[in-house]
């Protein structure tokens, strides 16, 4: 629902969800002509309980803000990359709520929620844990624009690419975890995608009432599956 703000500008109440990292996040923000204001925020770090945590957190942020689902004007979701099972929880939550409420859904690369706010004049490598000793990563220029990625690779490959692009610092949970292998100074915050930043990066689309987007995960990896091979005989 869009309501007129104090200056006559429209204000839109937006739900933001991200489940691409162990930080399961739900937030309510207000997007107006002037900017993005946080209304309520819940985040729990638990890599194994995305399915249990997210819906109660969405419920909680609505309650915290004294809002009802029907007051939402748009939903923004982090598209990953991230471990698939947890990532899908955020996207299916956003897509199904958007369907019921008839409001548009917008996707944002989750790494942008780490790399954009970390940028401070110099290129930066943003990384999250991709398990199997790999990272999901992207490189941002000094203004916070993503210039390469998202990609998935070993820390060594990510670090080499980041250096080529002039990155002098790394950020994100993946950077903490693989600080040694990356061999770049690690910026402490943000460690996980910031909900308010994801909202900022979708704010133009929200204000313009852009068409709803299909929330397709940034998987970056194919499913583990091997085609059936010839059957082994049972006779000796």
């Amino acid at each position: 629902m869009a309501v007129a703000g104090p200056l006559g500008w429209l204000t839109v109440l937006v739900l933001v969800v991200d489940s691409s990292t162990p930080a399961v996040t739900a937030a309510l923000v207000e997007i107006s002509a002037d900017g993005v204001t946080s209304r309520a925020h819940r985040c729990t770090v638990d890599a194994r309980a995305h399915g249990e945590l997210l819906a109660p957190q969405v419920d909680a942020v609505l309650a915290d803000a004294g809002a009802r689902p029907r007051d939402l004007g748009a939903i923004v979701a982090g598209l990953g990359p991230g471990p698939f099972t947890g990532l899908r929880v955020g996207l299916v939550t956003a897509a199904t709520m958007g369907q019921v409420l008839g409001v548009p859904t917008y996707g944002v690369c989750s790494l942008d929620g780490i790399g954009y706010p970390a940028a401070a004049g110099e290129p930066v490598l943003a990384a999250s844990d991709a398990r199997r000793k790999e990272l999901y990563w992207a490189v941002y220029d000094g203004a916070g624009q993503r210039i390469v990625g998202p990609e998935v690779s070993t820390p060594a490959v990510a670090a080499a690419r980041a250096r080529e692009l002039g990155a002098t610092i790394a950020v994100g949970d993946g950077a903490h975890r693989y600080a040694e292998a990356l061999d770049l100074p690690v910026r402490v915050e943000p460690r996980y995608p910031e909900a308010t930043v994801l909202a900022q990066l979708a704010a133009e689309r929200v204000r313009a009432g852009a068409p709803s987007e299909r929330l397709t995960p940034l998987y970056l990896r194919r499913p583990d599956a091997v085609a059936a091979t010839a059957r082994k005989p049972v006779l000796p």
Partner: protein
Amino acid sequence: MADEPLILGIETSCDETGVGIVRGHTLLADALASSVEEHARFGGVVPEVASRAHLEAIVPTMQRALTEAGVTLADIDAIAVTSGPGLAGALLVGVAAAKGYALAAEKPVYGVNHLAAHVAVDTLEHGPLPEPAIALLVSGGHSSLLLVDDLARGVTPLGATIDDAAGEAFDKVARLLGLPFPGGPPIDREARAGDAASIAFPRGLTAAKDLAAHRYDFSFSGLKTAVARWVEARQRAGEPVPVADVAASFQEAVCDVLTSKALAACRAQGIETLVIGGGVAANSRLRALAEQRAEKYGIRVRVPRPKLCTDNGAMVAALGSHLVAAGVAPSRLDLPADSALPLTTVSV
């Protein structure tokens, strides 16, 4: 009756994305999207492929179900979802979807047991289920014999497969015979032209010594190996494999064990109703043999039509409807997907 609750059911425990809508015992919509073709070249369901397909299919499948039933989510009284057992990642998509729908539409959500839903779906076809009843649930993922004394609160497992599921045996034998995946329908088709008595394949866990410990359990691994040995021996001798006879004899062995154990359970407990569900319940020989044998003992066999036997959303809605009618409390929003949800838990 218009005042009966309107219940929506979501099923994503394996490779079918199902959304069903029922009012009381009346089926209003049963929308399905299947990823079975994406799994065929792997010879079995690939969990990650199934999970990805569920995420893509859930919103459009929901839309089709609502359109088919001519209702909106605002009209729905409660949402039921399979919370287990099944493939963990696949279940999670359905559970998260159900919560998203429930949250946004401000409706209660019920996490329910997939196997109990296979029993409940029969009420859509044959009305309320007499309790107690015996249920035989056979599919690619499960083979169980249950005592259904109170479908709303708990069922008692009597037996289950100790190795392969019955449907899995059909898939493996089909592959051996060069028939497509999933193996149930092509074996059923081939078997019609074959002689079921031509090859004496073993009946697992039916010998006296096995019955002592496994009276109501099943085993299909030995049967599968016996079929493989028989076929390979033919091939090595350079003789043609009589596909129809092998299919018919194999199918007969499976159906013989399933129906004899299910009816033995009915007779031992003095129960007059046998419900059969799961994908293998679509097998024409299983249906015919169960009815033929049950008639002798005055036992009534209830098997829903094939489309309701395989995994679908209507079965979940049917169980949800039964739970709402019985006054069972809904689940909490932190409801987990549980790939190993025990049979004794009908709703979470």
